[in-house]
């Protein structure tokens, strides 16, 4: 059974190499959003968020309650953020068409999952996994088939958010105390925001977040995480 792909494992390992701190790293194809109408409409895709507890041995256990709570807190933080911007944020409806393999919106989400992970792997961690064809450029794209989604929602951009957050279990804390911190890390927050132009399919902006202290289980923490992820998004 597939649970966590090799990619995730590598990404988590790489994240642990980074010192305990909060940092973001963004890539952009544009300096400002293209205004085709009076205001820019951004379609917020379903949040890909998962919270887990970090066990003594360093593996994680998913926590459904935390995840559900964090999604709700993040969503309300994004809505508040949206009201402070010129652009309007629309929300994606999970409808019956989502169970059809031919629904373009579903395939676009799957495609973005792959592309987003590739950017994380080969751009954010390019020191280790650089691709020769992506050297010094940021030109990832989902292709023009995303127009179907744009037309369905009458939107200009689609915004994808991905967050994986873990918190030390009692066992992990004990292990760190016994080893005087030798086991190094506590829980980690890794995430990205990705903005896709629904006319061209290009990933026009991508922001990576790594934080040792972020905590989306509280309202304050969720607001801070959303701010870290989306604060620098082109307007």
């Amino acid at each position, binding site marked *: 059974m597939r649970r966590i792909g090799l990619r995730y494992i590598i990404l988590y390992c790489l994240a642990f190499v980074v010192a305990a701190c909060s940092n973001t790293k963004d890539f952009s194809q544009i300096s400002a959003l293209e205004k085709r109408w009076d205001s820019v409409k951004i379609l917020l895709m379903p949040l890909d968020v998962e919270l887990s507890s970090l066990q*003594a041995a360093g593996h994680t256990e998913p926590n459904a309650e935390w995840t559900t709570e964090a999604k709700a807190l993040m969503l309300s933080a994004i809505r508040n953020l949206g009201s402070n911007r010129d652009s309007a944020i629309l929300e994606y409806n999970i409808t019956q068409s989502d169970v059809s393999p031919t629904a373009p919106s579903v395939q676009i989400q799957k495609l973005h999952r792959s592309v987003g992970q590739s950017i994380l792997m080969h751009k954010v961690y390019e020191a280790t996994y650089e691709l020769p064809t992506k050297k010094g450029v940021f030109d990832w794209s989902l292709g023009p088939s995303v127009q179907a989604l744009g037309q369905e929602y009458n939107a200009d951009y689609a915004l994808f958010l991905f967050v994986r957050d873990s918190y030390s279990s009692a066992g992990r804390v004990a292990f760190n105390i016994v080893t005087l911190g030798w086991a190094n890390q506590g829980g980690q927050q890794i995430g990205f925001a990705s903005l896709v132009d629904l006319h061209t399919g290009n990933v026009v902006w991508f922001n990576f977040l790594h934080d040792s202290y972020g905590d989306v289980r509280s309202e304050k923490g969720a607001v801070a995480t959303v701010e870290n992820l989306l604060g620098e998004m082109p307007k």
Partner: protein
Amino acid sequence: MNRRHFVAGCTICAAMAGFGRQMTLANTLDRMKLTAEFAPGYRPDSSSLEAGIWQQVEDVERNVKTSHLVMADDDLRLYLADLVCRLDSEYCRDFRVYPMRIPLFNATMYPNGMMQVWSGLLLRVANEAQLMTVLGHEMGHYMRRHTLKHYESASNTANFLSFVGLGLAVGGLGELAQAAQLAGMGLIFSHSRQNEREADAYGVKVMSGAGYNPWQAPKIWRRLIAENEVAKHKRFRDPFYASHPSEAERVKNLEGYAQSLGFSEHQTSNDTGEFQKIIGKHRSMLIEDQLKLRQYNQTELILNWMMEEQTRLGETQYYLGELYRMRDEAGDQQRAQGHYANALQHTDTPFEAHRALGILHLKQGDKAKANDAFQRYLQLKPEASDREMILSYIGDQ
């Protein structure tokens, strides 16, 4: 080992001497806990680890639901759902069965009730009773919460080992720490093997309970053993990491259960009578996918078993021809030609047999015969998607 297991162990020794084997296995099946661990319609408590695992798996299921690997055949899906209800009418609404177009022998059970049946398995099961064995086995994994148990066991073992490894490292025994970790890995996988045994027993229990002959269960594994024996690339089987019991062990256990349940080997099953109709609809696709794997030895075996069924002989002969034409080793062209010729004596032969014959004739330099065969193909299938290609073959000559 507790006293009870010790006694059981000794009983099996006695059985090996040829006495009481039947009784022992009957006891084994009775003694195993083969009932659901929860009520129908169960959902885990939202604060539990189990709920976390379900949430992850629900995400997987959303992807599966919208995958084009799911075989788009409502009759097949309804049939599989109906079979699950025949196995357990109380719990069957907790299962969702997805037939997947993946040409490998496998079925998988996810902890939230999603079950996948792969097309490579549909190709290999010879009758409904065999299919029921597999469905029952997978249901067993769900009812006995095997994923969760495996996860918890792996998690506890991993947690335990990080402390054990630490102690040994501090004591200057770093190498021993490694050995302890390896032993731990063994524990994790052996737990899984135990789950597989339990699921095998569960499968036999419910399929025989629904009136299917349990002697069909070991036959699946017998065929798999035969396939492994002829395979060019032997399946990697590391005794340490293998997550399943060996096929030979499974056959032995399953035959024991069948014997203990009092079925005679040739007793008929209480079939729905739908198997050939529903699965048969996909037969040519299943065979074609298998052929594309280029596992010629295994495919040869599978097609020869199909010949024994004495149905759809034209189609089977055609695919035997395809097998040898694709393999193209010494004597294979003649073999292929023989099978195509044989196929054309039946009425259920795909029109493509003429095209295949044409290609063979062309290879052998017999243009007149090739032309005849190609023309026959286009006469029979004027709307063929490769019509232009075939016309160019004819024109070139």
